[in-house]
């Protein structure tokens, strides 16, 4: 298990480096997916399979899919890759690297002095345990999180409605099949929102 931990941790670090250095946006997002999967494996190795499974379901399986979805629809071509390559100059790296080094040094020194055993070992995190904690002592936070999500939902629905008011004449549901605009993706997106917004 220890080997699995170190291997997946190494993979997470390498994949995250890939996210930063890869000039192709879709490849970078895929590196991020790999990084999240590696972090999920770290959770499995630490004896918290529930957290690992949630990491895959929520981050790799839902949020990152939306990332890929959006990046895909932007239809970024070779121009973006070249631009990104131009931006990835050593001097651009300098400032963030210095700041990150300070953080890294702090982390290493903490790990060096602290009780490493206690850091790596954790109690078995079960679904029942998480549920009892969330709906017991942390109930208020759960409710606040729910409020935040509701606000996001209302916002999305509102944005979808604005699109509808601006273009009243064609039935908005026919937009995706219309395909008169060259960017099919952009025609598609508001329509999905519109359908969802209409019903909320």
């Amino acid at each position, binding site marked *: 298990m220890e080997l699995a931990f170190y291997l997946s941790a190494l993979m997470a670090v390498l994949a995250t480096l890939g996210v930063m250095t890869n000039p192709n946006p879709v490849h970078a997002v895929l590196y991020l997916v790999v990084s999240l999967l590696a972090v999920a494996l770290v959770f499995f190795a630490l004896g918290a399979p529930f957290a690992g499974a949630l990491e895959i379901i929520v981050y790799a399986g839902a949020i990152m899919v939306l990332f*890929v979805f959006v990046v895909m629809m932007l239809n970024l071509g070779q121009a973006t890759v070249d631009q990104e390559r131009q931006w990835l100059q050593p001097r651009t790296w300098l400032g963030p690297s210095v700041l990150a080094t300070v953080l890294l040094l702090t982390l290493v020194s903490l790990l060096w002095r602290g009780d490493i055993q206690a850091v790596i070992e954790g109690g078995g995190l079960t679904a029942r345990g998480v549920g009892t904690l969330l709906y017991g002592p942390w109930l208020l936070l759960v409710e606040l999180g729910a409020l935040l999500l509701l606000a996001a939902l209302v916002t999305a629905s509102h944005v979808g409605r604005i699109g509808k008011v601006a273009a009243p004449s064609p039935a908005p549901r026919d937009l995706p099949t219309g395909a008169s605009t060259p960017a099919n993706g952009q025609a598609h997106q508001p329509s999905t929102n519109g359908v*969802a917004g209409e019903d909320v």
Partner: protein
Amino acid sequence: MDWAMLDNLRPAWLNPTLLATVIAMLEAVAILLVAVLVSAVMTVVERRMLGLWQDRYGPNRVGPFGSLQLIADMLKIFFKEDWIPPFADRTIFLLAPGIAMASLLLSFVIIPITPTLGVADWNIGLLFFLAMGGINVYSVLLGGWSSANKYALIGSMRSSAQTISYEVFMGLSLMGVVATAGSFNLREIVEAQAGLWFVIPQFLGFCTFLIAGFATTHRHPFDQPEAEQELADGYHIEYSSMKFGMFFIGEYVGMLLISALTVTLFFGGWHGPLLPPFVWFALKTGVFLLLFILARAALPRPRYDRVMTFGWIVCLPLTLLNLLVTGAIILLANPA
């Protein structure tokens, strides 16, 4: 045969732990191969059954009753030119079919086939299936994007939007089962159904799970991602040969997986009178596989926005209602 005597003949390095490990590994490989084989056979069974239900002959030329059609298909798929379009994103184009097969095949790990047969016995069993379902979206998404083809892109966009929407309440529809059985572990869920199959107390959950299963495997009433008349072939339009074969078989692996899961979660898994457990499991799974085919034979394809609206307006409230009522009943039956 005297097994004790055989035990003496055993070399020293072959201790029982190692033996058990090897047997478990062989079992896992066998389950994997059987899953792929059944999926491949299903491609032909589907065409024959479609023929039967639509009042025509299906493929009946190769071998007795068309039983060797599968071999002909496989030969064709293996020897076709393996074409990668020059404008495609090569790495991702190659990666996508692999994700399609691997993520679905990995999900078979959690399915308990009989009381003794089954690969893994995990406490997060059901969550693992949902996680692999989440990963499976990438295959279609990346396949469509890397093809650099507008039809493929539209198909993969439809597919990912549809799958993400339906996965939301696929997870929610299973929570009623989880709450009733008190576990994510599929083996415990099956054992909890010894008296009463969950399809009766969790009927709404069963309906929504099956619909979501159809939608996430892109099977017929929900096969907008590859709707022939509008999108030619959707996300795998640029794929040929074995890479297309992996997408193609992957669809049937998905069907098999959803059928097996439906049986495990709602129809008591291996439970049943008289016949041995494995036969019961296979029979029930077969019924659901046929249901998948019957739906394709009988139903027209709805418009894409109707599919999305149906999901969010009908299925999501139903699953929430189901979960709420289930929770209330559990709390009333045994107040904490």
